[in-house]
């Protein structure tokens, strides 16, 4: 039991003392996850709107594939990108493997299906009622679409937060593509894996606490923000 309490007190010390390496690991995790989430939203949100609003052959197939890719294991995405970026792979000359860029590529691919699928179902839930109301109130096609976007924004934001949580907490892609290089590609989760394997529970627990705290802070801010916005309306 000693080591658990020892770990927790060491964790508190690290969090309070402003240990440089500790906070740079946290910052790197936040940075990489944010970039990946942004990239995935730029690609995924328009794709989702397109999938809902346009009717074409194979649409349902794409949505089904995207849905199933939501549960793809992180190591499989890691493996795929690894094979492409490795020196022996097709993009080997770029020397991208084991860099931050590689992690971002992998993470973006990992959550792209999450963004697409969740956004699709969010919009679909809104779709009918919003458009019917809008048109019964006499809005034209363009106005309908604007109302539609504005109604969808909280739902979409919630999807993006889910996507962020997924990359922020994943370890497979970061480990395989980043390589856990100290002060370069070491993120919260890869550091936890390493420190635990070294038997250093303090740092692991501290990082775990911060991981949860960041996730909580983001969700809490979002909740407050939506509430504020909705009451203001």
């Amino acid at each position: 039991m000693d080591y658990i309490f020892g770990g927790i007190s060491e964790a508190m010390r690290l969090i309070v003392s402003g240990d440089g390496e500790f906070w740079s690991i946290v910052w790197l995790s936040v940075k990489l996850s944010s970039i990946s989430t942004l990239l995935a939203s730029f690609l995924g949100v328009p794709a989702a709107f397109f999938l809902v609003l346009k009717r074409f052959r194979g649409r349902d197939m794409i949505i089904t594939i995207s849905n199933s890719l939501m549960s793809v294991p992180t190591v499989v995405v890691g493996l795929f990108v690894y094979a492409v970026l490795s020196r022996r792979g097709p993009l080997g000359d770029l020397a991208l493997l084991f860099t931050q860029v590689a992690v971002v590529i992998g993470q973006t691919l990992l959550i792209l299906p999450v963004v697409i699928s969740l956004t699709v179902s969010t919009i679909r839930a809104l779709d009918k009622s919003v458009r019917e109301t809008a048109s019964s109130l006499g809005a034209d096609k363009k106005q309908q679409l604007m109302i539609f976007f504005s109604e969808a924004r909280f739902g979409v934001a919630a999807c993006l937060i889910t996507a962020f949580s997924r990359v922020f907490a994943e370890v497979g892609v970061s480990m395989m593509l980043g390589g856990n290089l100290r002060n370069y590609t070491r993120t919260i989760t890869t550091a936890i894996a390493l420190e635990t394997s070294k038997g250093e529970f303090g740092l692991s627990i501290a990082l775990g606490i911060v991981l949860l705290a960041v996730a909580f802070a983001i969700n809490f801010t979002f909740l407050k923000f939506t509430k504020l916005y909705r009451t203001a309306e």
Partner: protein
Amino acid sequence: MKKMTAMMLGLLILASSAFTEDKEPVKVILSTTTSTYETGLLDYMLAPFEKENNCKVHSLSLGTGKAIQVAKDGNADLILVHARAAEDQFVAEGWGVNRQDVMYNDFLFMGPKEDPAGIKNAKSATEVCKKIAEAEQPFISRGDDSGTHKREMSFWKKLKTKPESGKDSWYMEAGQGMAATLKIADEKNGYVMLDRATYNFQKENTRLVLLYEGDDELLNPYGMIAVNPEKYPSVKYDLAMKMIEYFTSERGQKMIADYKIKGEQLYFPNFKNPRAAK
């Protein structure tokens, strides 16, 4: 009523047979380093031991740092690791008893074929590190507190310097196992220090080539220690002692020497080379 009695009787027989069943093999937990496990040496060594002693050995394959920690936490019966200083501390602090030299292998350096730091002609392992540092060529360290990492750190200590991942752009700490670290070195076109077993296994999977070997500083002795039953009374102390005896016996030592992969001997029994036990 008769049915009831019959059922009770049946249950009783079942229950008593569960208690008298003594053929169930005893479980022994060996906490060890990834290399001994990955090379298949353990399976090879343990199969006859398990048979003769009616036990089942569960090997936890971990980095040396964690392998020792797990034993300190009372989750293993004995350890087989390679980090002399940490082993001595483990015994000195009372966690383990009966440390025995078992075998050794050695470390070597791999790097890009062109050898930009010119380590091929170095006179010692320490000089290899010095040359890489001076040439500021990429060097990928295990960085995971493993026996291999500890050995590498001892060279930097001799040079009275401590390269830092992130600050010194050429020096990177992977914080991963040997095979993963070698892959990173391959991708970064850098140097790496690794154990011979991993080298034999991986040499065809990498573009890097063997550049330096053979220095005494690179010998890598393995030790076996039983967990102290005074610290954890539940440990299988007798079986742990038996296993250590088995590994260090003439028969065990010969088996270690005979173990080959792709025609190459991976580990060297200790009694042949006492200098390795230093």
